[in-house]
Protein backbone atom coordinates (compact mmCIF):
# COMPACT_ATOMS: atom_id res chain seq x y z
CA UNK A 1 0.00 0.00 0.00
CA UNK A 2 2.69 2.47 1.07
CA UNK A 3 4.97 1.44 -1.76
CA UNK A 4 2.19 1.95 -4.27
CA UNK A 5 1.35 5.27 -2.69
CA UNK A 6 4.89 6.52 -3.08
CA UNK A 7 5.04 5.43 -6.71
CA UNK A 8 1.72 7.12 -7.40
CA UNK A 9 2.87 10.26 -5.62
CA UNK A 10 6.15 10.25 -7.55
CA UNK A 11 4.42 9.88 -10.91
CA UNK A 12 1.99 12.69 -10.30
CA UNK A 13 4.78 14.95 -9.09
CA UNK A 14 6.86 14.02 -12.13
CA UNK A 15 4.00 14.96 -14.46
CA UNK A 16 3.63 18.20 -12.56
CA UNK A 17 7.17 19.10 -13.55
CA UNK A 18 6.23 19.47 -17.22
CA UNK A 19 4.46 22.85 -16.93
CA UNK A 20 7.31 24.10 -14.76
CA UNK A 21 9.84 23.18 -17.41
CA UNK A 22 7.71 24.78 -20.12
CA UNK A 23 7.44 28.02 -18.16
CA UNK A 24 11.17 27.94 -17.52
CA UNK A 25 11.98 27.62 -21.21
CA UNK A 26 9.36 30.13 -22.28
CA UNK A 27 10.40 32.88 -19.87
CA UNK A 28 14.07 32.40 -20.68
CA UNK A 29 13.38 32.48 -24.40
CA UNK A 30 11.21 35.57 -24.52
CA UNK A 31 13.18 37.53 -21.96
CA UNK A 32 16.35 37.17 -23.95
CA UNK A 33 14.56 38.01 -27.20
CA UNK A 34 13.07 41.28 -25.97
CA UNK A 35 16.52 42.37 -24.85
CA UNK A 36 17.73 45.47 -26.65
CA UNK A 37 20.85 44.73 -28.67
CA UNK A 38 21.58 41.46 -30.40
CA UNK A 39 24.55 39.14 -30.37
CA UNK A 40 25.98 40.68 -33.53
CA UNK A 41 25.86 44.31 -32.35
CA UNK A 42 29.59 44.50 -31.85
CA UNK A 43 31.93 47.45 -32.16
CA UNK A 44 32.12 47.16 -35.91
CA UNK A 45 28.91 47.35 -37.90
CA UNK A 46 28.52 44.34 -40.15
CA UNK A 47 27.70 44.82 -43.84
CA UNK A 48 23.95 44.19 -44.31
CA UNK A 49 24.50 41.14 -46.51
CA UNK A 50 26.66 39.42 -43.94
CA UNK A 51 24.24 40.42 -41.21
CA UNK A 52 21.36 38.92 -43.17
CA UNK A 53 23.32 35.75 -43.73
CA UNK A 54 24.15 35.46 -40.05
CA UNK A 55 20.53 36.08 -39.09
CA UNK A 56 19.40 33.47 -41.56
CA UNK A 57 21.96 30.98 -40.31
CA UNK A 58 20.74 31.32 -36.72
CA UNK A 59 17.07 31.63 -37.82
CA UNK A 60 16.87 35.13 -36.34
CA UNK A 61 14.97 36.32 -39.43
CA UNK A 62 12.00 34.09 -38.76
CA UNK A 63 8.89 35.26 -36.89
CA UNK A 64 9.32 35.05 -33.12
CA UNK A 65 6.78 32.29 -32.58
CA UNK A 66 8.40 30.16 -35.23
CA UNK A 67 11.77 30.62 -33.51
CA UNK A 68 10.17 29.72 -30.21
CA UNK A 69 8.71 26.46 -31.44
CA UNK A 70 11.91 25.63 -33.27
CA UNK A 71 13.78 26.13 -30.01
CA UNK A 72 11.29 24.01 -28.07
CA UNK A 73 11.74 21.24 -30.61
CA UNK A 74 15.50 21.47 -30.22
CA UNK A 75 15.35 21.36 -26.43
CA UNK A 76 13.29 18.19 -26.48
CA UNK A 77 16.13 16.51 -28.35
CA UNK A 78 18.52 18.04 -25.76
CA UNK A 79 20.20 20.21 -28.36
CA UNK A 80 20.87 23.75 -27.17
CA UNK A 81 22.18 24.91 -30.54
CA UNK A 82 25.39 26.75 -31.41
CA UNK A 83 26.87 29.43 -29.18
CA UNK A 84 26.66 32.93 -30.66
CA UNK A 85 29.89 34.15 -29.14
CA UNK A 86 32.17 31.16 -28.95
CA UNK A 87 32.31 30.41 -32.65
CA UNK A 88 32.71 26.74 -33.57
CA UNK A 89 31.33 25.70 -30.18
CA UNK A 90 27.88 24.37 -29.51
CA UNK A 91 26.24 25.18 -26.21
CA UNK A 92 26.18 21.46 -25.49
CA UNK A 93 29.96 21.35 -25.82
CA UNK A 94 30.39 24.36 -23.53
CA UNK A 95 28.13 22.77 -20.93
CA UNK A 96 29.96 19.48 -21.27
CA UNK A 97 33.21 21.31 -20.65
CA UNK A 98 32.13 23.57 -17.80
CA UNK A 99 29.70 21.40 -15.89
CA UNK A 100 32.07 18.65 -14.67
CA UNK A 101 34.17 21.33 -13.00
CA UNK A 102 31.16 22.97 -11.38
CA UNK A 103 29.75 19.59 -10.38
CA UNK A 104 33.00 18.59 -8.68
CA UNK A 105 33.22 21.78 -6.65
CA UNK A 106 29.49 21.84 -5.87
CA UNK A 107 29.27 18.14 -5.06
CA UNK A 108 32.24 18.22 -2.71
CA UNK A 109 30.83 21.33 -1.03
CA UNK A 110 27.48 19.60 -0.60
CA UNK A 111 29.02 16.49 1.00
CA UNK A 112 31.19 18.62 3.26
CA UNK A 113 28.22 20.79 4.25
CA UNK A 114 26.03 17.81 5.05
CA UNK A 115 28.46 16.01 7.33
CA UNK A 116 30.02 19.01 9.04
CA UNK A 117 26.68 20.79 9.36
CA UNK A 118 24.82 17.89 10.95
CA UNK A 119 27.75 17.10 13.26
CA UNK A 120 27.89 20.69 14.50
CA UNK A 121 24.11 20.85 14.84
CA UNK A 122 23.94 17.66 16.91
CA UNK A 123 26.83 18.78 19.10
CA UNK A 124 25.04 22.06 19.80
CA UNK A 125 21.69 20.36 20.47
CA UNK A 126 23.26 18.04 23.03
CA UNK A 127 24.66 21.06 24.87
CA UNK A 128 21.51 23.13 24.52
CA UNK A 129 21.65 26.58 26.19
CA UNK A 130 25.24 26.21 27.34
CA UNK A 131 28.02 28.59 26.43
CA UNK A 132 29.27 26.08 23.85
CA UNK A 133 25.84 25.98 22.22
CA UNK A 134 25.58 29.76 22.08
CA UNK A 135 29.01 30.22 20.58
CA UNK A 136 28.48 27.48 18.00
CA UNK A 137 25.18 29.02 16.95
CA UNK A 138 26.66 32.52 16.94
CA UNK A 139 29.36 31.33 14.57
CA UNK A 140 26.74 29.55 12.46
CA UNK A 141 24.77 32.79 12.21
CA UNK A 142 27.96 34.49 11.08
CA UNK A 143 28.36 31.78 8.44
CA UNK A 144 24.89 32.63 7.14
CA UNK A 145 25.47 36.35 7.27
CA UNK A 146 28.88 36.66 5.62
CA UNK A 147 28.34 36.52 1.87
CA UNK A 148 30.64 34.11 0.09
CA UNK A 149 32.03 36.88 -2.07
CA UNK A 150 33.37 38.38 1.15
CA UNK A 151 34.67 35.11 2.55
CA UNK A 152 36.47 34.21 -0.67
CA UNK A 153 38.71 37.29 -0.96
CA UNK A 154 39.45 37.16 2.79
CA UNK A 155 40.46 33.49 2.57
CA UNK A 156 42.62 34.22 -0.45
CA UNK A 157 44.19 37.15 1.37
CA UNK A 158 45.00 35.20 4.52
CA UNK A 159 45.71 31.67 3.29
CA UNK A 160 47.09 32.35 -0.18
CA UNK A 161 48.63 35.81 -0.18
CA UNK A 162 49.91 36.17 3.41
CA UNK A 163 50.51 32.57 4.44
CA UNK A 164 51.16 31.20 0.96
CA UNK A 165 49.78 27.76 1.83
CA UNK A 166 47.35 27.42 -1.04
CA UNK A 167 47.12 28.73 -4.59
CA UNK A 168 44.90 31.81 -4.90
CA UNK A 169 42.96 30.55 -7.89
CA UNK A 170 43.02 28.71 -11.17
CA UNK A 171 42.01 25.16 -11.93
CA UNK A 172 43.92 21.99 -12.77
CA UNK A 173 41.84 19.34 -10.99
CA UNK A 174 44.39 19.22 -8.15
CA UNK A 175 43.27 19.03 -4.53
CA UNK A 176 45.18 22.18 -3.52
CA UNK A 177 43.19 24.26 -5.96
CA UNK A 178 39.89 22.72 -4.83
CA UNK A 179 40.29 23.37 -1.10
CA UNK A 180 39.45 27.07 -0.99
CA UNK A 181 36.53 27.09 -3.45
CA UNK A 182 34.91 24.05 -1.84
CA UNK A 183 35.22 25.46 1.67
CA UNK A 184 33.94 28.88 0.61
CA UNK A 185 30.97 27.36 -1.15
CA UNK A 186 30.17 25.01 1.72
CA UNK A 187 30.30 27.54 4.58
CA UNK A 188 26.79 29.04 4.33
CA UNK A 189 25.28 25.60 3.76
CA UNK A 190 27.15 24.25 6.80
CA UNK A 191 25.71 27.08 8.88
CA UNK A 192 22.14 26.52 7.67
CA UNK A 193 22.32 22.78 8.14
CA UNK A 194 23.80 23.18 11.63
CA UNK A 195 20.93 25.48 12.64
CA UNK A 196 18.31 23.18 11.17
CA UNK A 197 19.79 20.08 12.75
CA UNK A 198 20.08 21.74 16.14
CA UNK A 199 16.45 22.87 16.07
CA UNK A 200 14.98 19.58 15.00
CA UNK A 201 17.30 17.56 17.22
CA UNK A 202 16.20 19.53 20.28
CA UNK A 203 12.59 18.92 19.35
CA UNK A 204 13.16 15.21 18.84
CA UNK A 205 15.11 14.87 22.09
CA UNK A 206 12.09 16.17 23.98
CA UNK A 207 9.73 13.60 22.51
CA UNK A 208 8.30 10.73 24.49
CA UNK A 209 9.91 7.85 22.67
CA UNK A 210 13.36 9.29 23.33
CA UNK A 211 12.52 9.53 27.00
CA UNK A 212 11.39 5.91 26.85
CA UNK A 213 14.61 4.86 25.17
CA UNK A 214 16.64 6.63 27.83
CA UNK A 215 14.44 5.22 30.59
CA UNK A 216 15.11 1.66 29.54
CA UNK A 217 18.81 2.39 29.97
CA UNK A 218 20.04 2.74 26.40
CA UNK A 219 23.38 4.56 26.31
CA UNK A 220 23.24 8.15 25.08
CA UNK A 221 25.08 7.70 21.80
CA UNK A 222 22.82 4.79 20.84
CA UNK A 223 19.72 6.84 21.61
CA UNK A 224 21.02 9.48 19.24
CA UNK A 225 22.13 7.11 16.52
CA UNK A 226 19.25 4.68 16.47
CA UNK A 227 16.28 6.77 17.48
CA UNK A 228 16.87 10.48 17.23
CA UNK A 229 19.06 10.86 14.16
CA UNK A 230 16.63 9.90 11.41
CA UNK A 231 13.69 12.10 12.41
CA UNK A 232 16.06 14.93 13.27
CA UNK A 233 17.57 14.80 9.79
CA UNK A 234 14.23 15.14 7.99
CA UNK A 235 14.31 18.95 7.82
CA UNK A 236 17.90 18.72 6.59
CA UNK A 237 16.83 16.39 3.80
CA UNK A 238 14.12 18.76 2.66
CA UNK A 239 16.64 21.59 2.82
CA UNK A 240 18.87 19.79 0.33
CA UNK A 241 16.73 21.01 -2.57
CA UNK A 242 17.07 24.73 -1.83
CA UNK A 243 20.66 24.09 -0.77
CA UNK A 244 21.50 22.83 -4.23
CA UNK A 245 20.00 25.92 -5.78
CA UNK A 246 22.06 28.00 -3.37
CA UNK A 247 25.25 26.13 -4.19
CA UNK A 248 24.68 26.52 -7.92
CA UNK A 249 24.05 30.24 -7.53
CA UNK A 250 27.00 30.60 -5.22
CA UNK A 251 29.20 28.79 -7.68
CA UNK A 252 28.74 31.66 -10.14
CA UNK A 253 30.53 33.98 -7.74
CA UNK A 254 33.03 31.41 -6.50
CA UNK A 255 34.08 30.47 -10.01
CA UNK A 256 34.62 34.10 -10.86
CA UNK A 257 36.72 34.85 -7.78
CA UNK A 258 38.87 31.74 -8.01
CA UNK A 259 39.00 31.86 -11.83
CA UNK A 260 37.52 28.40 -12.24
CA UNK A 261 36.40 27.50 -15.77
CA UNK A 262 33.02 26.14 -14.66
CA UNK A 263 29.55 26.61 -16.04
CA UNK A 264 28.95 29.65 -13.83
CA UNK A 265 31.77 31.61 -15.47
CA UNK A 266 30.36 30.76 -18.89
CA UNK A 267 26.99 32.00 -17.73
CA UNK A 268 28.23 35.38 -16.52
CA UNK A 269 30.36 35.76 -19.63
CA UNK A 270 27.42 34.81 -21.82
CA UNK A 271 25.13 37.22 -19.97
CA UNK A 272 27.54 40.12 -20.50
CA UNK A 273 28.04 39.20 -24.18
CA UNK A 274 24.33 38.65 -24.91
CA UNK A 275 25.11 35.14 -26.03
CA UNK A 276 21.42 34.16 -26.33
CA UNK A 277 21.78 30.46 -26.83
CA UNK A 278 24.45 29.99 -24.19
CA UNK A 279 22.55 31.92 -21.51
CA UNK A 280 19.29 30.15 -22.26
CA UNK A 281 21.07 26.84 -22.37
CA UNK A 282 22.65 27.35 -18.96
CA UNK A 283 19.45 28.68 -17.36
CA UNK A 284 17.45 25.75 -18.67
CA UNK A 285 20.14 23.25 -17.81
CA UNK A 286 20.47 24.50 -14.23
CA UNK A 287 16.70 24.90 -13.98
CA UNK A 288 16.21 21.26 -14.91
CA UNK A 289 18.84 20.15 -12.40
CA UNK A 290 17.25 22.17 -9.59
CA UNK A 291 13.76 20.98 -10.47
CA UNK A 292 14.85 17.33 -10.64
CA UNK A 293 16.80 17.54 -7.39
CA UNK A 294 13.85 19.12 -5.64
CA UNK A 295 11.75 16.27 -6.95
CA UNK A 296 14.20 13.65 -5.67
CA UNK A 297 14.43 15.38 -2.30
CA UNK A 298 10.65 15.52 -2.06
CA UNK A 299 10.28 11.80 -2.77
CA UNK A 300 13.13 10.91 -0.43
CA UNK A 301 11.52 13.01 2.28
CA UNK A 302 8.12 11.39 1.96
CA UNK A 303 9.76 7.99 1.89
CA UNK A 304 11.75 8.65 5.04
CA UNK A 305 8.94 10.33 6.94
CA UNK A 306 6.56 7.72 8.34
CA UNK A 307 4.08 10.45 9.22
CA UNK A 308 3.32 11.20 5.59
CA UNK A 309 0.45 9.13 4.28
CA UNK A 310 -0.48 8.69 0.68
CA UNK A 311 -4.08 7.57 0.86
CA UNK A 312 -5.29 11.16 0.82
CA UNK A 313 -5.31 13.34 -2.24
CA UNK A 314 -1.95 15.04 -2.47
Amino acid at each position, binding site marked *: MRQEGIIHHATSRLLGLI*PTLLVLITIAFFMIRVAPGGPFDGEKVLPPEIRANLDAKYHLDEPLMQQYFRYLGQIITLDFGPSFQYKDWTVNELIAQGFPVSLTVGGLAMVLAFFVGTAIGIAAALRQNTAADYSIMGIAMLGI*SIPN*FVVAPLLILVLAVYAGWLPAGGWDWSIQRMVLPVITLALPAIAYIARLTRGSMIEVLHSNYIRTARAKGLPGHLVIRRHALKPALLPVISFMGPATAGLITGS*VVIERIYSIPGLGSYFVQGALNRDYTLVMGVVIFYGVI*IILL*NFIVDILYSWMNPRIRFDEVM
Partner: protein
Amino acid sequence: MSDSVNTIVDDPFAAAMAEDDVRGRSLWMDAWHRLLKNRAAVISGIIMFVMLLVVLFGPMLSPWEGDFTDWDNTSSPPSLETGHWFGTDAVGRDILVRTLEGGRVSLMVGLVATLVSLVIGVTYGAIAGYYGGFTDRFMMRVVDIIYALPFMFFVILLMVVFGRHIVLIFVAIGAVNWLDMARIVRGQTLGLKNTEYVEAARACGVEHRDIIRRHIIPNLLGVVMVYVTLTIPQVILVESFLSFLGLGVQEPMSSWGALVNDGAQDMESAPWTLIFPAAFLTVTLYCFNYIGDGMRDALDPKDHF
Protein backbone atom coordinates in the same frame (compact mmCIF):
# COMPACT_ATOMS: atom_id res chain seq x y z
CA MET B 1 -27.70 42.41 38.65
CA SER B 2 -25.05 44.46 40.41
CA ASP B 3 -24.81 41.70 43.00
CA SER B 4 -23.76 39.10 40.49
CA VAL B 5 -21.11 41.43 39.12
CA ASN B 6 -19.71 41.83 42.60
CA THR B 7 -19.51 38.13 43.21
CA ILE B 8 -17.59 37.65 39.98
CA VAL B 9 -15.12 40.36 40.87
CA ASP B 10 -14.63 38.97 44.34
CA ASP B 11 -13.96 35.49 43.07
CA PRO B 12 -10.14 35.18 42.89
CA PHE B 13 -10.35 32.64 40.08
CA ALA B 14 -12.51 34.96 38.00
CA ALA B 15 -10.12 37.79 38.74
CA ALA B 16 -7.24 35.66 37.48
CA MET B 17 -9.27 34.83 34.41
CA ALA B 18 -9.96 38.49 33.82
CA GLU B 19 -6.26 39.24 34.12
CA ASP B 20 -5.49 36.52 31.64
CA ASP B 21 -8.03 38.07 29.39
CA VAL B 22 -6.29 41.41 29.51
CA ARG B 23 -2.96 39.82 28.68
CA GLY B 24 -4.56 37.86 25.87
CA ARG B 25 -5.84 41.01 24.29
CA SER B 26 -2.51 42.78 24.30
CA LEU B 27 -0.85 40.23 22.09
CA TRP B 28 1.43 42.86 20.66
CA MET B 29 2.66 43.99 24.06
CA ASP B 30 3.24 40.38 24.93
CA ALA B 31 5.35 39.83 21.86
CA TRP B 32 7.19 43.08 22.49
CA HIS B 33 8.15 41.99 26.00
CA ARG B 34 9.34 38.64 24.71
CA LEU B 35 11.40 40.43 22.08
CA LEU B 36 12.96 42.72 24.69
CA LYS B 37 14.08 39.69 26.67
CA ASN B 38 15.99 38.40 23.65
CA ARG B 39 19.38 39.98 24.26
CA ALA B 40 20.83 39.21 20.83
CA ALA B 41 17.84 40.77 19.09
CA VAL B 42 17.89 43.90 21.25
CA ILE B 43 21.61 44.47 20.77
CA SER B 44 21.21 43.89 17.04
CA GLY B 45 18.34 46.35 16.95
CA ILE B 46 20.42 49.03 18.66
CA ILE B 47 23.37 48.42 16.34
CA MET B 48 21.09 48.65 13.31
CA PHE B 49 19.59 51.89 14.57
CA VAL B 50 23.04 53.41 15.04
CA MET B 51 24.09 52.07 11.64
CA LEU B 52 21.07 53.72 10.05
CA LEU B 53 21.89 57.08 11.65
CA VAL B 54 25.56 56.88 10.72
CA VAL B 55 24.80 55.90 7.14
CA LEU B 56 22.21 58.66 6.77
CA PHE B 57 24.06 61.53 8.41
CA GLY B 58 27.70 60.40 8.40
CA PRO B 59 28.47 61.53 4.84
CA MET B 60 27.21 65.03 5.65
CA LEU B 61 29.57 65.34 8.61
CA SER B 62 32.60 64.03 6.78
CA PRO B 63 34.98 66.59 5.23
CA TRP B 64 35.22 64.41 2.10
CA GLU B 65 32.85 63.91 -0.80
CA GLY B 66 32.27 60.38 -2.03
CA ASP B 67 33.55 61.10 -5.54
CA PHE B 68 36.35 63.48 -4.46
CA THR B 69 39.76 62.19 -5.51
CA ASP B 70 42.55 63.08 -3.12
CA TRP B 71 45.60 62.78 -5.36
CA ASP B 72 47.98 63.35 -2.45
CA ASN B 73 46.68 60.22 -0.74
CA THR B 74 45.97 57.41 -3.19
CA SER B 75 45.75 53.94 -1.69
CA SER B 76 46.74 55.38 1.66
CA PRO B 77 46.11 53.20 4.71
CA PRO B 78 43.67 54.22 7.45
CA SER B 79 45.12 57.11 9.40
CA LEU B 80 43.98 60.01 11.52
CA GLU B 81 46.60 62.36 10.12
CA THR B 82 45.40 62.34 6.53
CA GLY B 83 41.81 62.56 7.71
CA HIS B 84 40.94 59.33 5.88
CA TRP B 85 39.96 57.17 8.84
CA PHE B 86 39.29 54.11 6.69
CA GLY B 87 42.02 54.93 4.13
CA THR B 88 41.53 55.67 0.46
CA ASP B 89 41.20 53.60 -2.69
CA ALA B 90 43.46 53.54 -5.74
CA VAL B 91 42.17 56.89 -7.01
CA GLY B 92 42.20 58.55 -3.61
CA ARG B 93 38.52 58.37 -2.74
CA ASP B 94 37.74 58.26 0.98
CA ILE B 95 36.68 54.73 1.93
CA LEU B 96 34.67 55.85 4.96
CA VAL B 97 32.40 58.12 2.95
CA ARG B 98 32.14 55.62 0.12
CA THR B 99 31.19 52.88 2.56
CA LEU B 100 28.51 55.02 4.16
CA GLU B 101 27.11 56.14 0.83
CA GLY B 102 27.16 52.56 -0.39
CA GLY B 103 25.30 51.67 2.78
CA ARG B 104 22.53 54.10 1.88
CA VAL B 105 22.05 52.30 -1.42
CA SER B 106 22.27 48.82 0.10
CA LEU B 107 19.82 49.59 2.89
CA MET B 108 17.49 51.38 0.52
CA VAL B 109 17.47 48.44 -1.87
CA GLY B 110 16.82 46.17 1.09
CA LEU B 111 13.84 48.20 2.27
CA VAL B 112 12.28 49.07 -1.07
CA ALA B 113 12.66 45.66 -2.68
CA THR B 114 11.25 44.05 0.46
CA LEU B 115 8.33 46.45 0.23
CA VAL B 116 7.74 45.42 -3.38
CA SER B 117 7.75 41.75 -2.43
CA LEU B 118 5.56 42.54 0.56
CA VAL B 119 2.87 44.24 -1.50
CA ILE B 120 2.82 41.58 -4.21
CA GLY B 121 3.05 38.67 -1.79
CA VAL B 122 0.41 39.83 0.68
CA THR B 123 -2.09 40.76 -2.02
CA TYR B 124 -1.54 37.55 -3.93
CA GLY B 125 -1.59 35.28 -0.89
CA ALA B 126 -4.61 36.94 0.69
CA ILE B 127 -6.62 36.71 -2.52
CA ALA B 128 -5.70 33.06 -3.11
CA GLY B 129 -6.44 32.07 0.46
CA TYR B 130 -9.64 34.07 0.75
CA TYR B 131 -11.34 32.99 -2.44
CA GLY B 132 -10.14 29.39 -2.21
CA GLY B 133 -11.31 26.71 -4.60
CA PHE B 134 -10.17 26.90 -8.19
CA THR B 135 -8.72 30.40 -7.83
CA ASP B 136 -6.56 29.23 -4.96
CA ARG B 137 -5.43 26.05 -6.70
CA PHE B 138 -4.55 27.91 -9.87
CA MET B 139 -2.75 30.77 -8.11
CA MET B 140 -0.74 28.47 -5.88
CA ARG B 141 0.14 26.23 -8.80
CA VAL B 142 1.63 29.31 -10.47
CA VAL B 143 3.64 30.00 -7.33
CA ASP B 144 4.88 26.40 -7.27
CA ILE B 145 6.01 26.68 -10.86
CA ILE B 146 7.87 29.94 -10.36
CA TYR B 147 9.31 28.60 -7.13
CA ALA B 148 11.11 25.84 -8.97
CA LEU B 149 12.89 28.25 -11.30
CA PRO B 150 16.53 29.17 -10.70
CA PHE B 151 15.68 32.58 -9.31
CA MET B 152 19.13 34.15 -9.16
CA PHE B 153 19.66 33.41 -12.82
CA PHE B 154 16.47 35.19 -13.66
CA VAL B 155 17.49 38.26 -11.72
CA ILE B 156 20.77 38.23 -13.65
CA LEU B 157 18.84 37.80 -16.89
CA LEU B 158 16.56 40.72 -15.96
CA MET B 159 19.53 42.94 -15.19
CA VAL B 160 21.24 42.04 -18.45
CA VAL B 161 18.15 42.41 -20.56
CA PHE B 162 16.76 45.65 -19.19
CA GLY B 163 19.95 47.42 -18.18
CA ARG B 164 21.33 48.15 -14.74
CA HIS B 165 18.99 50.79 -13.44
CA ILE B 166 18.49 51.16 -9.69
CA VAL B 167 14.70 51.02 -9.99
CA LEU B 168 15.00 47.81 -11.92
CA ILE B 169 17.04 46.32 -9.10
CA PHE B 170 14.18 47.02 -6.70
CA VAL B 171 11.63 45.56 -9.04
CA ALA B 172 13.67 42.57 -10.16
CA ILE B 173 14.58 41.46 -6.65
CA GLY B 174 11.14 42.23 -5.25
CA ALA B 175 9.38 40.52 -8.12
CA VAL B 176 11.15 37.24 -7.58
CA ASN B 177 11.14 37.37 -3.79
CA TRP B 178 7.42 37.47 -3.08
CA LEU B 179 6.77 33.75 -3.35
CA ASP B 180 7.45 32.81 0.27
CA MET B 181 5.39 35.74 1.42
CA ALA B 182 2.47 34.68 -0.76
CA ARG B 183 2.61 31.13 0.58
CA ILE B 184 2.74 32.18 4.21
CA VAL B 185 -0.02 34.76 3.82
CA ARG B 186 -2.23 32.28 2.00
CA GLY B 187 -1.83 29.72 4.77
CA GLN B 188 -2.74 32.28 7.41
CA THR B 189 -5.70 33.55 5.39
CA LEU B 190 -7.11 30.05 5.11
CA GLY B 191 -7.28 29.95 8.88
CA LEU B 192 -8.60 33.48 9.26
CA LYS B 193 -11.39 33.41 6.73
CA ASN B 194 -13.55 31.08 8.81
CA THR B 195 -13.28 33.08 12.01
CA GLU B 196 -16.45 34.54 13.48
CA TYR B 197 -15.61 38.16 12.86
CA VAL B 198 -15.00 37.55 9.18
CA GLU B 199 -18.24 35.63 8.95
CA ALA B 200 -19.99 38.47 10.77
CA ALA B 201 -18.58 40.96 8.31
CA ARG B 202 -19.73 38.78 5.44
CA ALA B 203 -23.19 38.49 6.97
CA CYS B 204 -23.35 42.28 7.21
CA GLY B 205 -22.79 42.41 3.50
CA VAL B 206 -19.26 43.82 3.51
CA GLU B 207 -17.64 43.40 0.14
CA HIS B 208 -14.95 40.77 -0.32
CA ARG B 209 -12.35 43.37 -1.15
CA ASP B 210 -13.05 45.27 2.05
CA ILE B 211 -13.05 42.11 4.14
CA ILE B 212 -9.60 41.25 2.83
CA ARG B 213 -8.35 44.76 3.39
CA ARG B 214 -9.89 45.51 6.76
CA HIS B 215 -10.18 42.15 8.48
CA ILE B 216 -7.80 39.67 6.93
CA ILE B 217 -4.66 41.67 6.23
CA PRO B 218 -4.46 43.49 9.61
CA ASN B 219 -4.55 40.13 11.33
CA LEU B 220 -1.73 38.81 9.19
CA LEU B 221 0.65 41.59 10.18
CA GLY B 222 2.47 39.68 12.89
CA VAL B 223 3.61 36.90 10.64
CA VAL B 224 4.26 39.30 7.81
CA MET B 225 6.49 41.48 10.00
CA VAL B 226 8.62 38.53 10.98
CA TYR B 227 9.01 37.60 7.40
CA VAL B 228 9.86 41.14 6.35
CA THR B 229 12.74 41.28 8.80
CA LEU B 230 14.04 38.01 7.43
CA THR B 231 13.62 39.19 3.83
CA ILE B 232 15.56 42.45 4.19
CA PRO B 233 18.97 40.80 4.70
CA GLN B 234 18.25 38.36 1.86
CA VAL B 235 17.51 41.23 -0.46
CA ILE B 236 20.60 43.18 0.60
CA LEU B 237 22.59 40.04 -0.06
CA VAL B 238 21.12 39.59 -3.53
CA GLU B 239 21.84 43.20 -4.42
CA SER B 240 25.44 42.99 -3.25
CA PHE B 241 25.79 39.71 -5.09
CA LEU B 242 24.66 41.38 -8.31
CA SER B 243 26.84 44.42 -7.73
CA PHE B 244 29.77 42.17 -6.98
CA LEU B 245 29.34 40.49 -10.36
CA GLY B 246 29.22 43.94 -11.95
CA LEU B 247 25.52 43.55 -12.74
CA GLY B 248 24.11 45.76 -9.99
CA VAL B 249 24.37 49.48 -9.28
CA GLN B 250 26.77 51.42 -11.46
CA GLU B 251 29.32 54.17 -10.92
CA PRO B 252 29.23 56.80 -9.56
CA MET B 253 26.60 55.18 -7.36
CA SER B 254 27.93 52.46 -5.16
CA SER B 255 26.75 49.80 -2.79
CA TRP B 256 28.46 47.52 -0.31
CA GLY B 257 28.57 44.73 -2.88
CA ALA B 258 30.18 46.97 -5.47
CA LEU B 259 32.69 48.25 -2.90
CA VAL B 260 33.59 44.71 -1.87
CA ASN B 261 34.15 43.95 -5.52
CA ASP B 262 36.42 46.99 -5.92
CA GLY B 263 38.20 46.10 -2.71
CA ALA B 264 38.76 42.52 -3.78
CA GLN B 265 40.58 43.79 -6.88
CA ASP B 266 43.31 45.59 -4.92
CA MET B 267 43.17 43.73 -1.64
CA GLU B 268 46.82 42.69 -1.87
CA SER B 269 48.07 46.27 -1.91
CA ALA B 270 45.22 47.91 0.00
CA PRO B 271 43.29 45.39 2.12
CA TRP B 272 41.37 48.17 3.90
CA THR B 273 39.41 48.85 0.72
CA LEU B 274 37.98 45.34 1.10
CA ILE B 275 37.75 45.00 4.85
CA PHE B 276 35.68 48.06 5.79
CA PRO B 277 32.79 47.66 3.33
CA ALA B 278 32.81 43.91 3.95
CA ALA B 279 32.56 44.48 7.70
CA PHE B 280 29.66 46.91 7.34
CA LEU B 281 27.80 44.53 5.05
CA THR B 282 28.37 41.55 7.31
CA VAL B 283 27.39 43.36 10.51
CA THR B 284 24.16 44.50 8.88
CA LEU B 285 23.21 41.05 7.64
CA TYR B 286 24.17 39.55 11.00
CA CYS B 287 22.01 41.97 12.94
CA PHE B 288 19.00 41.67 10.66
CA ASN B 289 19.13 37.91 10.92
CA TYR B 290 19.17 38.11 14.72
CA ILE B 291 16.30 40.61 14.79
CA GLY B 292 14.28 38.40 12.45
CA ASP B 293 14.97 35.35 14.59
CA GLY B 294 14.02 37.20 17.73
CA MET B 295 10.80 38.51 16.21
CA ARG B 296 9.86 35.06 15.03
CA ASP B 297 10.36 33.64 18.49
CA ALA B 298 8.46 36.53 20.04
CA LEU B 299 5.49 36.65 17.69
CA ASP B 300 4.80 33.01 17.17
CA PRO B 301 6.71 30.98 19.70
CA LYS B 302 5.46 27.68 18.36
CA ASP B 303 5.28 28.12 14.65
CA HIS B 304 8.59 27.96 12.84
CA PHE B 305 8.18 27.98 9.11
